[in-house]
């Protein structure tokens, strides 16, 4: 958070309390994190991440292969929770080669797209045509021509008003006080 001191032309009483206002960069970061959260396959971390198999347990098959990588697929919000690498996670790392057919397939989507871009750039006609956009990028739709609607973060109905501190929308004084009491700057999206 970048605290901005809001003190110009404001009463001394208010100047005492340090008022945090999120700047545009911080708001963009929160927005991006909120969008990433919408794309996540799992919210929580792997419940079996710290399973330790007893040495005495009979090994029927290669147990490593029955558990996929213990990170959730996007390595997004949820993955930040698991700091320690369990034995299972290490074993799963080894089986990653099987999952990606001997390493020929990229393990995550970002790498796949990057590789495709690099491949296109190397094609003979690339420099000449000037456009190295992949079909994947070209298919991406642009923004809507319609103006966006805004909803109250507390009740989900129309939200015409904006919180000065964090930029969240609200509809009425009662929803705003709920927002201030419980959620302003506290909800990590």
């Amino acid at each position, binding site marked *: 958070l970048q605290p901005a001191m809001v003190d110009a032309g404001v009463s001394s009483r208010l100047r005492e309390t340090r008022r945090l206002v999120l700047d545009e960069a911080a708001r963009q970061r929160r927005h991006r994190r909120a*969008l990433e959260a919408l794309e996540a396959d799992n919210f929580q971390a792997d419940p079996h991440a710290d399973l330790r198999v007893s040495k005495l347990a009979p090994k029927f098959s290669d147990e490593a292969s029955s558990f996929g990588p213990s990170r959730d697929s996007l390595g997004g919000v949820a993955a930040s929770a698991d700091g320690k690498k369990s034995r299972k996670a290490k074993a799963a790392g080894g089986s990653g080669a099987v999952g990606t057919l001997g390493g020929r397939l990229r393990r995550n989507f970002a790498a796949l797209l990057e590789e495709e871009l690099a*491949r296109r750039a190397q094609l003979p006609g690339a420099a000449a045509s000037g456009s190295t956009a992949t079909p994947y990028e070209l*298919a991406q739709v642009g923004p809507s021509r319609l103006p966006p609607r805004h909803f109250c973060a507390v009740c989900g109905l129309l939200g015409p008003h904006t919180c000065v501190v964090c930029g969240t929308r609200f509809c009425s004084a009662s929803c705003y006080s709920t927002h201030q009491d419980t959620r302003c700057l506290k909800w990590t999206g």
Partner: protein
Amino acid sequence: GKDTLIVDLGAGYVKIGSASESEPRQVINSVTKAKHVKTRVFVGNELDECKDLSGLYYQLPFQKGYLLNWELQKQVLDHCLKPYADKRPLSEWQVIVTEPCINFSPVAEALDEVLFEEYGFKAVARLPAAFLAAQRDQRQRGVLPADHACLVLDCGYSFSHAAAYRRGRLVPGSVRRVNVGGKVLTNYLKEAISYRQLMVMDETHVMNQCKEDACFVSENFDADLAAMSRAAQRSPLDSEAQERCQKLCCEYVLPDYAQHRRGFVRQLGSQKQQQQEQTLRLGIERVATPELLFRPSDAGIPEMGVAEALCDTLSGLPPHEQPLYTDAVVLAGGSCRFAGFANRLETELRASLPDDFPLGVRCHGDPAAQAWLGGRDLALSPDGALECYAVSRKDYRDHGAALCSERFAQFT
């Protein structure tokens, strides 16, 4: 012929069946872990054996709509294919398998390799799901292949695609992708409920079912919003607004896994709350969730919705041919299943198209099954149409991956 398997490989579900069956089996495409069951994982629909479906953790072979993890996918496919492999060895089956509208060569090559070399199928046809939906439309309406033109809207788990098909081929450059699908809708509903009522961020499975059971597409979202806003302010409501509010407000009884394995919608006041019950109060969320398909910007996603995307596809087509396409807007994919979807799409398109353009939103049954049914139609087609799309194992061995990309690339 009848020795063909059709596998519609989706990020959310695998729709699988043989050409002799009339509808596909839907298998969740995940290797799932349950919070309280540490001894095993649940591959695909083995999840039905799990007693407590709360706090499930999904491991999906797909990422952002593309099949990247074969470790996981093999487990799910082995599970799906077992009943068919038991009937007859896989080397005696042909297979039609689906891919997204726009694919990446490493993903496509990996799929071909696994199908030919790991599973050993007799022949493989790798075709876009939207292409199969177009095939289904052409055969259902009895249109001659040479005369056929349609727009396909495929709303799946990871994203939605609009694409134009003419004479059985994709019109190059016509594909538009909106990054809203079932996954985003469920996550949006989870967040809304977690903000307002009950922490359900861990309960993807339950909230996904809640979405399927309780959500529908509003024919006029702004009117619903206005009515609910007025009701919240205790302003007087006219009869239309009252009707809208009554239609929206309901209870959703959450599953307890003792008596109910799935939640259900209950009208307000119809029954007193039982002691052990957990319920959600639903209102605007029921329509605001699927609304994201039409207005991603409602959730801050800076993209146009599916109706606008279809119009964008259309605008790239030759003007004198455009009416041919609007006459057949084919719905495919599980996220088109919401009640009121077809109606709303028609309203939005009608408002954007010239008056003299015919408009026909076509839904030939369950949207989630359309690609599979198109594959089945192709397999059973008396004119042997599948032959021109399939690559035999022998040809794959002799000519390798290059032949596949050439043969299947006719459609991308």
